[in-house]
């Protein structure tokens, strides 16, 4: 999961190109590769095909409207403004927490942990990745949210003048906000960021580290002079992969963030829906084509968002991150 790699040059080939068996096998494997390409292309195509009729029938501006009214198929009014705000706020908050912590963990596991302990420690982080997202959502809303409520209250009382911490649209409730979701998402994307970053840090050329050590550098100076410059692009790529995961997270967000009747004004203490959680919440009502198409249009935007973020990750990594 979450890997970025350049195709390596193919392995050695025999002198003869072989007969019918060779050709058949070559076609079979190329066909499997094509299935992957086709899958991604078809996802885009079918989402567009299903979304366009609803977009045409839409009476509100798709990009600037904050409402999502699909109850009346003859008078569809839907826009993604609030979905975008909630999705970006929760994901960026998660990134702001998970990036420094993930970097720290990757350094701890590669530069500070004795090799005897590296395996069990990395396993611990791996367990974080193995916990299903519905369990994170469950734990987040039932266990974590009440515990961090006083902290949220504190932020709102003393930093409420700043728009991120101003009273939200589900005020005075402070559990089940974007803030809660941001923390849960941070925990969920931590293993992704850590795993990929760690892998790049391990590839730091030995001679660069030894050169720094020979100059009398302390451990931290070795990291600053050799490890970080080498691994920077990999770390950014890893963070992008984490962001992509956070943008598309569905069930944890659906369980954690409360619905809200008034539009968002950009506070972390708002409620509402992300693209993914809105689609999942309405899934049981997918019966008429036009209202369903409205949700598919939201899904299309999410697909484009994650496509772009993952493509950026790949370009930034430039083949350094592998496997």
């Amino acid at each position: 999961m979450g890997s970025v790699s350049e195709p390596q040059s193919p392995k050695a080939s025999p002198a003869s190109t072989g007969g019918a068996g060779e050709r058949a096998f070559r076609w079979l494997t190329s066909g499997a590769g094509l299935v992957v390409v086709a899958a991604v292309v078809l996802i885009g195509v079918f989402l567009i095909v299903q979304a366009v009729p609803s977009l045409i029938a839409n009476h509100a501006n798709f990009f600037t409207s904050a409402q999502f009214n699909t109850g009346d198929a003859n008078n569809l009014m839907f826009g993604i403004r609030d979905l975008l705000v909630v999705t970006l706020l929760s994901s960026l908050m998660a990134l702001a927490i998970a990036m420094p912590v993930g970097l720290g963990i990757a350094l701890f596991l590669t530069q500070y942990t004795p090799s005897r302990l590296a395996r069990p420690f990395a396993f611990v982080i791996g367990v974080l990745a193995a916990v299903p997202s519905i369990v994170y959502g469950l734990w987040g809303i039932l266990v974590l949210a009440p515990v961090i409520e006083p902290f949220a209250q504190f932020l709102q009382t003393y930093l409420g003048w700043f728009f991120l911490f101003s009273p939200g649209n589900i005020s005075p409730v402070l559990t089940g906000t974007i803030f809660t979701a941001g923390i849960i998402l941070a925990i969920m994307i931590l293993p992704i960021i850590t795993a990929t970053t760690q892998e790049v840090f391990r590839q730091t050329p030995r001679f660069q580290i030894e050169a720094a050590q020979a100059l009398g550098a302390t451990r931290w100076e070795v990291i600053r002079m050799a490890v970080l410059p080498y691994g920077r692009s990999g770390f950014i790529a890893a963070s992008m992969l984490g962001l992509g995961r956070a943008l598309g997270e569905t069930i944890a967000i659906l369980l954690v963030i409360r619905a809200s009747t008034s539009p968002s004004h950009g506070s972390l203490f708002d409620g509402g829906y992300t693209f993914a959680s809105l689609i999942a919440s309405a899934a049981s009502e997918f019966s008429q084509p036009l209202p369903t198409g409205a949700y598919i249009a939201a899904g299309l935007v999410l697909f484009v968002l994650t496509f772009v973020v993952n493509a950026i990750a790949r370009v930034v990594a430039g083949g350094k991150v592998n496997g």
Partner: protein
Amino acid sequence: MSTALDAPDRPAVPETFRSVSASRKIKNQAATVLVTLAFLIAVIPLVWLLVSVLVKGIPAIVSADWWTKSLSGVTPDEVRGGVYHAIAGTLIQALIAGIFAVPIGILAAVYLVEYGRGRLAKITSFMVDILSGVPSIVAALFIFALFISILGFDQSGFLVGLALVLLMLPVVIRNTQEMLQLVPDELREAAYALGIPKWKTILRIVLPTALSGTVTGVMLAFARVMGETAPVLVLVGYARAINFNPFQGNMASLPLLIYTELSTNPSAAGQLRIWGGALTLIIIVMIFQIIASVISRFSSISK
């Protein structure tokens, strides 16, 4: 220079290696503390989460009925019945995904490592990355748009399996690819030297050598898709009884059971089932993870 000539017997140590200045020492210490803290910060929620799931879930899963009975005929507030129907559904849906994703994934990995050349290989590799980033809800919507909206199928467990194929494929491909890369070229060349064609070399030499690693990747892919909730919300209805037929009718799965009980059943029995279901799901995912790591120990090639 002149000092060295004047007193050749004096060791060079004092001048050459000056002690590390206080500010550098402090910075170094601070960095050590910070990265250790970062690790601890990650461990706290993990332990906290596992402990709360264990404490609240164990009372549910210790009864024998939990593993052998469904919720058929059990009223929502009755502490009775089990999640056998949901476990069966989870495994059946994952199996359907595996039937498609494992062969396609392995073949695609073979293509990327052994044959991939030129533009198609570049595009394929790029698309594998994109596919691994496709959110599960988008994969579910795609299957919904294609099979339910356009082709007119009914909701079923089979469609969930198809959505899971999309999520499983990139995991299988990347893991297999990594393993194939590790197979020493000498093995391939030795086979070619004996006049064995490339495809037979791949089937008889390369894939068997990479087998344990590939199986590990497949197990990890299973572990990943079994916890997915978004596809089951969109593509299948919840059933309280056992349904082994993925092509017809509603079918439960552990995530769907947890979600349904959470959103419709506020009673104490519902709470018990929610946490019991969460613990059961973690246990099943963990079993696959452990199988994966045990198999990778027996790997014939190592990183």
